[in-house]
């Protein structure tokens, strides 16, 4: 099978056309991250860098094992470590692999004003098409999980693709393949949900009474799910949202406000046209060139 194509789209950003969904017989996929068997080795993180050919900068020690400290345009997945003392006073070291959740109802896609820059395939993967991205950052605001990051060099937004290129040819995502303890699994959403049920039962037998599956309804469920020892309080896992929702502004932007906003855009375009006619086009100044060179100089590793 070739790579995922427009025929596989079920959603497309900023488009009034309904995608053809010719291939909507595809099974929905999911990645299941079992936090209870994760040892925080970062094999997933290095596999992600390898497969996607990403190399961030050698940073600094910042007071935790989170390296880099946050997601960035070259860090699409990140182990986040939390030292948490439970109700018995015993320490638990909660280690969560952070990255795109591939929401069933993706806030990024809803927020995106660039036609086709964000798409959702029939298998559930939410993917960014850099060619169409305008770098506006609306996806960042639209994401309830704070995942996308704008690259300051090429002004495009980046995040985990769930290795859509690998999945399209029948492979599991790179992080799944690299995980030594089987803490990251991949398959159909129904299989992963069923397996999560077994894991939750096992954790309950070990005394984790509140163990459960994280597949939040507020975004229609996700195609990346967690097995959590303490599913009653997701936020202890480095701020995993307890009940993620798409911002009401985004919902509004897609709903009643959309015609108003479009009118605003039209006005701005007209104003811009008039300004251009009267004041002439912007010239590139010397300092702009210098700034650009600096950015590019720092951006050798940019994808």
């Amino acid at each position, binding site marked *: 099978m070739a790579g995922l194509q427009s025929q596989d789209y079920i959603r497309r950003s900023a488009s009034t056309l309904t995608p053809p969904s010719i291939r909507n017989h595809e099974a929905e996929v999911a990645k299941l991250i079992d936090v*209870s*068997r*994760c*040892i*925080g*080795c*970062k*094999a997933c*993180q*290095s596999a992600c*860098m*390898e497969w996607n050919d990403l*190399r*961030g*900068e*050698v*940073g*600094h*020690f*910042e*007071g*935790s*094992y989170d*390296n*880099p400290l946050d997601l960035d345009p070259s860090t699409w997945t990140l182990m986040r470590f939390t*030292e948490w*003392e439970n109700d018995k006073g*015993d*320490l*638990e*070291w*909660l*280690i969560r692999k952070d990255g795109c959740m591939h929401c069933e109802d993706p806030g990024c896609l809803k927020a995106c004003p660039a036609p086709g820059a964000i798409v959702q395939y029939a298998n559930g993967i939410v993917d960014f098409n850099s060619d169409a991205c305008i770098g506006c950052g609306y996806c960042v605001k639209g994401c309830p999980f704070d995942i996308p990051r704008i690259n300051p060099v090429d002004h495009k937004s980046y995040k985990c693709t769930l290795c859509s290129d690998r999945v399209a040819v029948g492979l599991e995502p790179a992080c799944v393949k690299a995980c*030594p*303890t*089987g*803490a990251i699994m991949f398959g159909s959403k129904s299989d992963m949900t069923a397996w999560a049920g077994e*894991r939750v039962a*096992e954790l309950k*037998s*070990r005394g984790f009474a509140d163990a459960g599956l994280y597949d939040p309804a507020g975004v229609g469920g996700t195609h990346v799910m967690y097995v959590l020892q303490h599913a009653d309080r997701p936020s202890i896992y480095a701020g995993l949202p307890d009940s993620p929702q798409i911002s009401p502004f985004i919902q509004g932007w897609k709903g009643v406000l959309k015609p108003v906003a479009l009118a605003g855009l039209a006005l701005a375009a007209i104003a811009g046209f008039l300004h251009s006619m009267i004041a002439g086009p912007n010239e590139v100044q010397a300092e702009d060139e210098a700034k650009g060179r600096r950015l590019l100089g720092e951006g050798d590793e940019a994808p």
Partner: protein
Amino acid sequence: MTNTWQDIKNANVVLVMGGNAAEAHPCGFKWVIHAKIENHAKLIVVDPRFTRTAAVADVYAPIRPGTDIAFLNGVIRYLLEKDLIQHEYVRAYTNAGLIVKQGYGFQDGLFSGYKEDTRSYDKTSWDYELDGQGYAKVDDTWQDPRCVINLLRQHVDRYTPQMVSRICGTPQDKFLEICALFATTAPPDKALTSLFALGWTQHSVGAQNIRAMAMVQLLLGNIGVAGGGMNALRGHSNIQGLTDVGLLSAQMPGYLLLPKDSELTYQQYMATRQYKPLRPGQVSYWQNYGKFFVSLQKAIYGAAARADNDWAYDWLPKVDGGGYDIIRAFEMMNNGQMNGYICQGFNPLQAFPDRNKIRRGLSKLKYLVVMDPLDTETSRFWENFGPQNPSDPAKIQTEVFQLPTSCFAEETGSLVNSARWLQWHWKAADPPGEAQTDIWIMSGIFHRMRELYRKEGGAFPDPILNLTWDYTNPTDPDPEELAKDMNGRALVDIKDPSGAVTLHAGQLLDGFSQLRDDGMTTSGCWIFSGSFTEKGNQMARRDATDPREQGLAPNWAWSWPANRRVMYNRASADPAGKAWNPQKPIIEWNGSKWAGIDVPDFVPTIPPSDAAGPFIMNAEGSGRLFARDQMAEGPFPEHYEPFESPSPNVLHPKVKSNPAARVFADDRAAFGSSADYPYVATTYRLTEHFHFWTKHALINAVLQPEQFIEIGEVLAKEKGIGQGGWVKVSSKRGIVVCKAYVTKRIKPMQVDGKPVHVIGVPIHWGFTGQARKGYGANNLTPSVGDANTQTPEFKAFLVNIEKASAPPA
């Protein structure tokens, strides 16, 4: 490892103590997760720090670095007092009932026979009472007060839960919870596996740490069974191979020992190595020592090793005084007694204790040869890298030769993994630049040296001139040819008593049982015999078929010895030959022979009725709760404090630290006191890096970019140290300036009524590579080793800590 990685999944309880398997062995750790999920196993972690292994453990207990023997002796006391041992196993398979000589004793921290002037023991009293036939006397009823189990009971009596907690700082309830979990594996069909590594070896009592746990395992009947064993997780991909082929200062391949300088003749050497059985009917396999030794000499010297020159015994170096371990080597360098050093695949400036002493030693050399794929710190020791390596090149005359070598993926050969599997691998790429394989380089050095000896004679040319070097390409021998050398072959036609030829001249041997002490066979490493036979390269096998799915995969690669996957597997069956655990049998007696899913670690035809013990390498045939004269510091493990410790030895204040450990005077002078250096430090590695190699790789450098130490919240607050703030850690030997990770994962422990703070020092940073420059952790560590192995005491020493500012970039 006695067992395999995959076998861990068969365990009911997994103990990680003296190691940090999830961080240091993340790939193998998958089998612990299997054990948890498929076998409902409980995972126990005992460690000074709450590690990434602890993050997935069922029970975690803190322990003060260097007090593991107190903990484990406490476990032994608990098991004996509550009578939670596997009785039939202990009675039949250990030396519990053997009677110890009058004269053996233990008082005030010392065993009988101590000689203070030499810091060593006269061990003659550490043995059994013998009968008229030379067999050890036994009391299977365990009534005799001098039988081993009663002496052990007496020895560990002091290690009450209160005492354990007082020494180790482990809360009593956690200790007792763990004891109870251990005891759940005393029933014959239950097993505990012990996973350990440098957290046990890198102490002045390292070997006894491991012995203590091995004794626990014998008492629980967990040696030789599926899901049991003592499993040393090795730290390099081929460090097991290194020890197997004898690259230690007093050893030869296959765990044969280099002669001592007191053993002037071959006959004297062999006199103490005949290993006559100490109980009737025992196998005592080391009786074959001569066959292994002569075959090794034939591999080294070929036709020049003859019966009439005692197989060239005189050409072997003789060990004077313990061996030339690394601590001694650098002591000699500092004293001007060693002035050349060939450093092959080793980075002493990063890896050895008391780094400033290492730098001083290297500075005194005439020449240093570094063979390495990487630009190591050692090869640049003479260069000024700022405070991280403050050398003055103008004052250093050492001539340094850097010989770049290929790395593992750029060469063909075998690697021995922790489970003793020799796995053949194939070259994937050519080495870059001028890099050459180690074989090519060593061949070149050898040929040039031999030529010099030929031309110039020299004091003792025989061992070099007579070395056999029979390879198709003498300047670059093929790894397969070398592997065949290790395996061994018949040198002449070998006939059975009827005169029929059983082995043709030149034929590769099937295994070490074919080796002979008459010069008709050769084998460069007897335990590898069987790895490359006439059937081909057994190490290259890749059939993952796994009978009973018990994690043995007998046709995947080849495991020494004899492709045996579980050592001592005779002990997986009861004395009558039936599996203790019918769900997971390994071998059983089928009425005519021992058979099952593994190669029997036993003579396959000896019936259970002969009562031969399963520990065939021991002359008494049984597992040793009492070690006889095999250990430097005593036949039972005893708690001795690390050489730098904040606490007195509350058991025997006059004998604080290991009385049999060798300590050089200048190293002793460099020990700090707790008055000046009040905190306990321990060094370790992190998942993101492999020792000092991966800081040369960009991805690893991104994942863990910069040096830090770990400090608990309480001490950090006391010292005004903030999260990520700069600190200076100092020992009497040197300093490390880096950032602090203030963590909940290290908590002060109450030791003998006082709080003890632990500071964690990861080891990975240096001054070459892609990661940020750092101070070597071994600036801090003391130069003293285990009394048996001289493995340095990296895991427990004293430091001070204070707030600091960043060093100049």
